[in-house]
């Protein structure tokens, strides 16, 4: 049962299994083991980032494509839901329409970018996607009468999901629309993650890994590598758009900063490298650690900055706004010393004594 659910790709390390179990249980029970809005928000963000990073891992970790356009697809999904709900009386019909339109747009854009750019070398592809994504972000913030511009758009959700809609109480947490939304996000995230796990462990996924290892050889074996790369690109893009849709549903807000910004892209890169490229589980561990750090490290840094208040440079370096500095350093060190990420380290330890 579990083997089928995880597509035969078990964690293969005791430490990893335990951490994964902890994360999943923590996320599944988040509304009941925590109180207040902030922890629930953190948990929902973790779910969404797991999907987003897993879909990016399909590209960078399994196929070896470096794309900087992932946030664009993330944003398209979010804006699809946001604009669908954007009316005085929000209902599911327009939202589904918006989501469908977003998914179609995602697919078409991913296909076009793939057709044009995947023929060229890796560095070229990275540059082209960066250019396309940044233009898209500018476009979204400029078409302000439609997208709300830099400020983005807040919108209402149907009454079923609104916090005012209370069903009852369970274990000290009032079951309202927000908790229901959380579970929608959680189960959608689980579903997409398992689907991605299924894809990378299918024969199709094996071909992607062959392309990553040696594209020339994969082609020589008779696989049309361009088709496979474009397909991987499209699957990753659609998953990212779905993650964006979940984010919009959760935040009830869409804006360029939370979905299209370059910061989101660097976050994804950091998570995928720290968690472990080419291991879907890396996205779970990485996203959990990263989002927790993002939410709680800042207050820790503020305390540390207060402790060294007299020292000029150190104080500025420990300022909460500078946390990206430390993550950047961590990122570089991770690429040098743990190229396989946390999951890779776990698995390595698990395998070595057995030899």
């Amino acid at each position, binding site marked *: 049962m579990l083997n089928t659910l995880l597509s035969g790709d078990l964690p293969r390390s005791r430490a990893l299994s335990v951490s994964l179990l902890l994360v999943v249980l923590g996320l599944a029970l988040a509304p009941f083991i925590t109180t207040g809005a902030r922890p629930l928000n953190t948990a929902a963000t973790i779910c969404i980032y797991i999907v987003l990073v897993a879909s990016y891992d399909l590209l*960078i970790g399994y196929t*070896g494509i*470096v794309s900087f356009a992932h946030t664009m697809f993330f944003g398209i999904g979010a804006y699809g839901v946001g604009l669908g709900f954007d009316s005085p009386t929000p209902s599911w019909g327009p939202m589904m329409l918006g989501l469908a339109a977003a998914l179609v747009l995602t697919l078409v854009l991913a296909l076009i970018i793939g057709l*044009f*750019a995947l*023929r*060229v070398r*890796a*560095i*070229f592809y*990275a*540059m*082209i996607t*960066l*250019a*396309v994504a*940044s*233009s898209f972000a*500018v*476009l979204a913030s*400029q*078409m302000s009468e439609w997208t709300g511009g830099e400020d983005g758009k807040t919108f209402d959700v149907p009454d079923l999901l609104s916090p005012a809609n209370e069903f009852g109480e369970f274990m000290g947490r009032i079951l309202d629309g927000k908790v229901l939304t959380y579970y929608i996000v959680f189960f959608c995230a689980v579903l997409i993650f398992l689907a991605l796990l299924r894809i990378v462990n299918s024969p199709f996924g094996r071909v992607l890994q062959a392309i990553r290892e040696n594209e020339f050889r994969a082609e020589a074996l008779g696989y049309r590598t361009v088709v496979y790369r474009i397909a991987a690109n499209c699957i990753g893009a659609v998953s990212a758009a779905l993650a964006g849709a979940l984010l919009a549903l959760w935040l009830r807000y869409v804006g360029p900063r939370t979905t299209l910004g*370059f910061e989101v892209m*660097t976050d994804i*890169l950091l998570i995928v*490298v720290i968690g472990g490229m080419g291991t879907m589980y890396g996205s779970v561990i990485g996203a959990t650690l990263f989002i927790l750090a993002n939410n709680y490290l800042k207050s820790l840094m503020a305390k540390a900055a207060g402790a060294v208040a007299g020292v000029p*440079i150190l104080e*500025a*370096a420990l*300022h909460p*706004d*500078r946390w*990206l*500095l430390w*993550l*950047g*350093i961590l*990122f*570089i060190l991770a*690429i*040098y010393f743990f*190229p396989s990420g946390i999951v890779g380290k776990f698995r390595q330890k698990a395998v070595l004594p057995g030899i």
Partner: protein
Amino acid sequence: MEADSLGMNLGALGLAIAMAMAVTAVLGWVFERVIIMPVYGQHLKQILITMGGMIVVEQLIHVVWGADHKPMPLPTALRGAILLGDAAIEKYRLLAVAVGVLVFIVLTLVLNRTKLGLLIRAGVENGEMVEALGYRIRRLFVAVFAAGSALAGLGGVMWGLYKETLTASMGGEVMVMVFITIIIGGLGSVGGCFIGALLMALTANYAGFLAPKLALVSHIVLMIAILLWRPAGLSRK
């Protein structure tokens, strides 16, 4: 720094440029040695590591100089415009054009007419062969990286003065345009870059004049059109 004579101003600017280029050359050298060298030959890691390096350096700028925008007024003699017939041409833009042409000529000559340029081009084509011929290609490439960084420093001075403000993210902002220019022009060609930059600027200008909304995506449209025609850029057949 308020002097009125053109000579004094240009002298101060030249000094600033020389300093900036020296500093960025050293920084580039260090960056290459410390950050990029361990991952040479691995494209994926190289992209990721330079990205990480950029984040760290940008944040360090915030740490040392603060996160605010810094105004950077032009030297007095370079403000204002010259009237040529009915057209007003800003003095500073003339200077920028002169500097650009100078860099272009020097780079073209060095890469195409000197032994150094020959070695660089050969090293890109087949590094092992050049090493087998007895040249220390690693040293050469560090020097190339440092020289590239110095030129980027020069570009930074010119761009900062053009914008008249300094922010830590100004590098990241022009990055995309730099990429597009190189892709349009084709890697490894100074002439291609020149044509690419001309095309970019002119398209953006005229698209902005004719259809302002279109100007935002004009770069991308131009890039896609050129890649359709020549997948490796203008300068390569």
